[in-house]
C-alpha cells in the first residue's frame, strides 16, 4: 500500500505560549519526522499562526486542512505532503 493511502493517527503539537515564528519552527521540525500523508494538529495561542502556518504550508507544498479557534486556543490541521 502506498503511503498516500495509509491512514495515519493524528499527531499533535502544542505550541501554546510561543510567539511566531516559533510555532512555525516547531511545526517545521516536527514534520521532518513525519511521513507523507500524516496529519498534524498544531495548537497555538499566537493568532499569528493563522497566517504563518498556512503560508509556510504553501511555500513547502503541505496541505492545510483547516484552522479553528476555540476560546484562546487556535488549531491548525495540516497534511504532510513531501516531494
Amino acid at each position, binding site marked *: 500500500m502506498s503511503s498516500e493511502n495509509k491512514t495515519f493517527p493524528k499527531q499533535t503539537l502544542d505550541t501554546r505560549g510561543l510567539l511566531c*515564528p516559533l510555532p512555525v519552527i516547531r511545526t517545521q521540525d516536527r514534520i521532518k519526522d513525519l511521513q507523507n500523508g500524516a496529519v498534524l494538529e498544531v495548537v497555538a495561542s499566537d493568532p499569528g499562526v493563522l497566517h504563518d502556518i498556512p503560508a*509556510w504550508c504553501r511555500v513547502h507544498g503541505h496541505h492545510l486542512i483547516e484552522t479553528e479557534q476555540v476560546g484562546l486556543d487556535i488549531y491548525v490541521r495540516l497534511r504532510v505532503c513531501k516531494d
Partner: protein
Amino acid sequence: MAHQRKAVALISGGLDSLLAARVMLEQNIHVEGINFYTGFCVEGHTHAIRKKHQLKPKRNNALWSAEQLGIKLHIIDISEEYKDIVINPKHGYGQNLNPCLDCKIFMVNQARAWGFMADNDFDFIITGEVIGQRPKSQRKETMPVIARESGVNDRLLRPLCAKNLPETLPEREGWVDRDALYGFHGRNRKPQMALAEQFGFTDYAQPAGGCCFLTDANYSKKLADLWQARGERKYEIDDIMLLKIGRHIRPAQNYKVIIGREEGENNYLEGYRKQFAHIRIESHFGPLTLVDGTPDQEDLLQAARIAARFSQGRDAGEVRVEICVPGLDNRFVNVSPIPAQELPKNWYV
C-alpha cells in the same frame, strides 16, 4: 543540459534579500531561503501582542518573501547559540547593543553549515548586502571579513553589489553571469526600489532601523539594565521576550516590575504567572504586574503600590491587591497607590 547550481539565500524579509534571491532566480539558479530566529527578531506578531497594532497585517515577512519568489524557506532557531554573539561580540557593538558584524558572520556561517551539508548540497550562499548600506556591517572593509570569518570565502555572493567586489567562485566558474549582477552602493534606496518595480514587487517590508530589537535604543537600554542588575551579562529567552513587553520599572537592584499596558500585553504576561511573583488588582480595573528578581516582602508591597498606580484606583485611598508568589499562598492586602512624585523618572527602564 548544464547542471543547475544551488544557492542558499539569507532571507530577512526585507527588500534587499528579496531582490538578491530574485536576481539569482533570473539566472536559473535553484534558490532556497534560510531565515534565522535569534529571539531579537522584530516580527509583526511581537508587535501584535499590543492591541493597538492589531489592525496591521500579521505576516511573517520572510515567509512572504519566499512566497513572492516561489522558493522554499527554512526557518532555523539559533537563539541559544546566538547568546554568545550578543554577550561577547568579537567586533563590538554598533550604536546600541547590536553586534551587527558578528551577527552577519555568524548567520553566513550557519547558512554554510546548513547549505553545504551532504544532504543539502548547495553550491554557494547569497545575501542582500549592499556596500555602504549599514554603518557597522555593510562596508567595503567588512565584506571580505564576513566572507573569511564565516568560512564561506569566495562562495559568498552579493548579487546587489557584486560589481563593486572581487569576482567570486560562482562568477569565475560561470555559474552566474557577473554582467547581469548589480553595483549598488550607499544608503540610497532608489536603485533597489526601481529594481523591485521592474520585478513587480509591491508591498514589501521596509522596517525602519532594521529587523532586530538590538538596534533599538530603548530595548538595548532595558537589556543593559538587566545585565547591570544581575551583575553578569547573561540572559534567557524569556528575559529577552519580556523586554519587548510592558512598562518596566526598577525601584531597586534586586527587582523590577513589568506592567502590562493593555489587554494584549496582559494576556501575554499571564503566560508567565507560574514562573514569576505577580500582582493582580482586585478592587479596581488594572493591569497584571510581574515582579522579576528577588523581592522580599517589603519589596512586594512596594511593587503592589506601583501596580495600583497604574490601575483605575490610582486616585483611591486604598486599592486591594492579590500578591502571588510561586510556591507560597496568595495573600490579599490593601495598599495606597504610589503618588506620581514618589515614582522617580529614573526608575523607568
